Structures are given as structure tokens and as C-alpha cells.
């Protein structure tokens, strides 16, 4: 049953906290920083979402999951995509970063710079702060891309365990 009973935007944000990212389910879509705005338009909740990577296949799944979750709470909802400003890992919540670390994925540090600031300069990829398993700071990059576009594959030089690094973006 879909009703138009008034629900506050704060409640919707809370419900969205329970919608996991399909690729990294320890993160909610809110933790990931992709929900930009929630509003009511003509009896319908409109959730504005920004894509993480432009080719990420999870984007369509996320939109469907958000609409489904809100419908399950009894409200009509749709998602809208917003490209600008582009998503950055700086929008990821502190809670989300800690959840990543506990899951064995090194969380991103601060992203390099806004687009434009590095024109002509060398592009350097930041290193993970520490191995998510043992906390050692000496790590090496195995591959700049991992199981998803947002992650790189690293290896800890202390405990020798491989781990994923959520790249600053």
C-alpha cells in the first residue's frame, strides 16, 4: 500500500541509512555520500543521487534499491541523478570509513584536489594510511584497480596480507 501520509525528510534520511551499497554492503548509500538531497515533490519523495564512477554498474541497482526501500516504508519515491558537483570520497561519512576498515578495506584519505587544480601536473595516487588488518603503515600497490572501479589492490609489507584500498576520488 502506497500512501501519501506526510513523512519528514529526516525520517527518509534515516530509512536511507538502511539501504546498503550493493558492491560494498557494509556501507549505506548515505555513508557512501551519494545521496545529495531529499525533498517532497507533489506527494512523492525525490531522492537526488550522484553516481560514484561514471561507468559503475551499481548505479542503476542503487536507484532501484532506494525506490524499493522507500516504497516498503509506504511512500512513493523516485530518484534523480545529479552529475555536478562530481562525487568525491570526501563526502563519505566517518562512520562509513570506520565500517570499511573493520570490513578489511582501507578507507580513502582526503581526495587530491578539485578538478582543475592539478592541470598539467603529475597525477599521484595517495597511499592508504595503514593496513586494515594489522595497522602497519608500510604497504605496496599491487594493482591500481581491484574488484570494482573504486578500489585498488594493495599488499601489507608487515603482515603480508593483501587488501583492498578504497581510492580517494
Amino acid at each position, binding site marked *: 500500500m502506497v500512501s501519501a501520509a506526510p513523512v519528514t525528510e529526516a525520517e527518509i534520511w534515516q530509512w536511507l541509512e538502511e539501504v546498503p551499497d550493493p558492491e560494498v554492503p557494509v556501507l549505506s548509500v548515505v555513508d557512501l555520500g551519494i545521496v545529495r538531497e531529499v525533498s517532497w515533490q507533489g506527494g512523492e519523495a525525490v531522492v537526488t543521487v550522484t553516481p560514484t564512477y*561514471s561507468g559503475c554498474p551499481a548505479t542503476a541497482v542503487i536507484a532501484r534499491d532506494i525506490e524499493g526501500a522507500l516504497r516498503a516504508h509506504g511512500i512513493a519515491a523516485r530518484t534523480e541523478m545529479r552529475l555536478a558537483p562530481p562525487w568525491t570520497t570526501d563526502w563519505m561519512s566517518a562512520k562509513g570509513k570506520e565500517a570499511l576498515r573493520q570490513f578489511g578495506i582501507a578507507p580513502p584519505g582526503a581526495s587530491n584536489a578539485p578538478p582543475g587544480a592539478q*592541470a598539467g601536473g603529475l*597525477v599521484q595516487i595517495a597511499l592508504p594510511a595503514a593496513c586494515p588488518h594489522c595497522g602497519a603503515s608500510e604497504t605496496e600497490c599491487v594493482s591500481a*584497480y581491484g574488484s570494482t572501479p573504486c578500489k585498488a589492490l594493495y599488499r601489507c609489507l608487515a603482515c603480508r596480507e593483501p587488501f583492498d584500498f578504497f581510492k580517494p*576520488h
Partner: protein
Amino acid sequence: MNPEALFAFSLRMGDNALVLSQRLGEWCGHGPALEEDLALANTALDLLGHARMWLSLAGEAEGRGRDEDQLAFLRDAGEFRNLLLVEQANGDYACTMARQYYFDAWHHPLLERLAQAREPRVAAIAAKAAKEAAYHLHRSREWVVRLGDGTGESHRRMQAAAEELWPYTGEMFAADDADRAFVDPAELQPGWRAEVEATFARATLTLPGGGWMQQGGKRGVHTEKLGHLLAEMQFLQRAYPGAKW
């Protein structure tokens, strides 16, 4: 903004991304190592995302009701506006990386310039794509150095690839009015050359000399390789028009 220039320009950007994405996708399952397979597929995926955004914008600007899928799957080679560079065959790993590096070293600064464009849709797509292209450039640059400054055999192959693809680099900087409505690509040439020279020096490679530059992609005059690529990419929609799953 003149819609014809916007259509022409976004079509070029979209076709570059689409054709290069398709080429990189050919490596899927054939990469020299699992990590490389993943990296190539991820780069292809980023570019496919760019292609979707640019081609959707092209369809909007054209105003004839064509969407991203119709533009991607229902045009013939003569209607594609990509650079000749991106349609060149994968060859060996040195060829794939030389093609990627020449392109990335142009693509990334171009996107950063376009992120400041007055047309807001162009600026939004470019700002998004630039962040991904930064990773592409970092990776392809390091491969050029690793292969160039590697073994005798890898050096020989990297040098040969750099020379083989060199004649396709001039087209990136040859401008017409559709380009100049956004960025004059000729302005990117000094920065591109400085980037390539610095990398080739690290890679112990010799910069190929000037010589004849191939052109035509932006006008729809392509090498024979594009037709073969499209035959594979478009087969399903040609054989089963409108098929969805």
C-alpha cells in the same frame, strides 16, 4: 550555445570514449595477468560511462529523438567522429599502452579545461570524467616507463609501438569550429608534448620524429579497422533491432 556545435563536439567526445572502451573490452579475459585484465576492464567501464553521458547529450542537442543507444548502435563507420588513434588495433601490450598513453595525456587536460566550460552540461560531464581520466593517465604513463625501461625485448616493443601510433597523434590537436566553440585543442599541444617527452625520457625511449600525420576521424573518414570493430559491437542491435534484456 549553437546546438550544431554542441552536437558535433559531444559526438566526438562520446565516440572517442565508446570506441576506445570497445577496444579495451576486447582484452577482457585475455589480459597478461588477472590484475591487468581487471584494470583494462575498469578503464573500459569508465570510458563507457563517459560515452553514455556524451552521447545522451549529443542526442539532446541534435533534437531528433536519438538516444545514446541509437547513436552507439545504429550509425555506420562514416558517421562516427572518433580520432583514428582510438580505433587502432590492440596489438601487443606495448601497442595498447602506447595508444592509451597518447590518448590519456590529451584526454585528461582536455577534460580539466572543459570542466570550466560555459555550457553547464559539458562542464558537469567533463568534471566527472576528469577524475577518472586522472587515474587512467597515471596508469598508462607508468606502463610506458615500465616497458620502455624494462628488458631489451620490452624496450624494443615499446619503442616500436610508440613509433607505429605516432602518426595518429596529430589529429588530436587539429581544430575546427566545433572544437573551438569549447576548447581549441591546439592549445593543449605544448603541454601534451612536454608530458610525453618527460615520460619518454624516464622510459629511455626516443620520441618519434614529426613526419606525416594521419587525419580524418573527426570528419568520418576512418581506417578500415573501425568497420570491423563496429560489426562486432553493433551485431546484436542490427540483427535483433530494439532487443532488450
